[in-house]
């Protein structure tokens, strides 16, 4: 795994797409949870939720671009797939917990 980490070398033309895709991993990633939460607390209309999941999909796609340009190993690919599934569930869990606390304290 260590050997595969630095080889093969990143091609010169790949630096820019890597920087851009890695930035967009986080931008789309935060848009996903942001839009999800905003819809849930009724700052946005319900149909906007579609975009939340679209942003999640774009996050995955950007991560895929970044990972393949950086030549990540097989093990890392598995980790990334699991991470993205986890990320899909994350805002649901967070909202559930927060909502629960809110309800309990409103009573």
């Amino acid at each position, binding site marked *: *795994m*260590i050997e595969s*980490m*630095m080889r093969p070398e*990143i091609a*010169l033309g790949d*630096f*820019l797409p*890597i*920087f851009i895709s*890695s*930035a967009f*991993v*986080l*931008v789309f*990633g*935060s848009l996903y*949870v*942001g839009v999800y*939460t*905003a819809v849930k*607390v*009724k*700052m946005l209309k319900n149909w906007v939720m579609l975009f939340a999941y679209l942003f999640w999909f774009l996050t995955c796609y950007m991560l895929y671009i970044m990972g393949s340009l*950086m*030549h990540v190993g097989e093990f890392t690919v598995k980790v990334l797939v699991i991470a993205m599934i986890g990320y899909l569930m994350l*805002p649901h869990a*967070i*909202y559930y*917990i*927060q909502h629960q*606390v*809110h309800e*309990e*304290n409103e009573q």
Partner: protein
Amino acid sequence: MANNYLKSESKQLATWYFTFAAIIFGAQLVFGLVAAIQFVMPSFLYQILDFSIARILHINALVVWMVFAMFGSVYWLLPDETEIETVGIKIGKLLFWVFAAAIVVVVLVFLFIQVGPADQTTIWFITEGREYIEAPRWADIGIVVVALGFVANLFLTGIKGKQTGIVTVLMADMIAFSGLYLAGMFFTDNISVDQYWWWWVIHLWVEATWEVFVGAIAAYGLIKMLGAHRQVVEMWLWIEVSMLFGSGILGMGHHYFWIGTPEYWWEIGALFSALEPLPLVAMFVHVLYDWGKTQGAQEAHHEKVSVIKNRPAFTWFVLNAFGNFLGAGVWGFFHTLPQINLYTHGTQFTAAHGHLAFFGAYATILIGMFYLAVQGKNGIKVMKSTKLSIWSTSMITGGVMGMTVALTIAGYVQVIVERAQMGATWSGYFDSQSGAWFTQAMDWRLLMGVITFLGFVLLATDLLRTGKSAIHER
């Protein structure tokens, strides 16, 4: 100055800390401008106030004003949280003057003596020459004494008064914050060991204990400004602490890729620093959630008024949530994986990340605290934005964003020319620095720096004036 509305001595002390912090903030920007001018015009102040000295003052003033504002924030919120006057406030006030005097002496020595001979007297009395913590050894010891006094104030008050979740987090966090400074106070001939421990101070401050501090302050601010539910806010704070420390402590690995430390830090650093943006996303979502919920509850009662009790402070808190994510998260994630970091480490990329992260994660929320103090000091019930506050916020934010983008472009040129093609030699370095894209990026950086500085002047004016303005509800 008439402190009519401040009954608490702790809050008065907080305003001293905030005032001194704001002055040092200004100094930070002035020396930043000097350094930015030198990138464009290298002969500027050559052998009078060289880049190295301007930069020491730029980054040390940054650290010092933030530490002052952080201490001030704690003194400000303690009476609110614990419902008692801070214990040992007289000593707290004395230590403020000791701290401020020590800082002035250190700055004067940096400015006028600058460097010393290669022996221990220089380390003790002039400079330690270690980035961010250049302050000489005598000042280190002084800082430890002052920090211990501050932590004692906090602990005694927390134990005697009501110990809320926010206070508990601050107690644990501040002791770690002060204790870590000790890791940066020794000399060794082995530069790998030197940098290993140096990062304990730098990283465990800015990517762990300071971030937790921000979480605690944000929690306090949300309760104060929005009337957010304490139970929700504090539970969320604990989750943030878990996420921040869980990713941040071992995220240190991303500084151990190339300093002589073993290769296993590649995997550790990559994994944990990839997780570091998560708590930042969480903090951002949390602000959104509380805002939506409280405003929603208000509107359910058919009241269309905003729930925000301090508009300028809230603006800065929202900028914090967003800026923390963008500066520390996006600009950090960019170059945190070892495959990429091999090429970006030690280029203007790091400078771009540093500018946006320190601003987004820390400057924003501390400026927010300044506004909370102005509100409290002047007995204002609902504080509105003024024209000045809107202009200053936009100019500072726009200026820092502009500098960050310019530095990112400069960093990209460096990565491609110096690192990927020329292999980081002397000539490779200067080839990258002479490219048109690089030099133009530096021109833009200077221009954006000037805008940031003008924004600061407006901010200082607003902070001094807005308390007397008639537009606020009293």
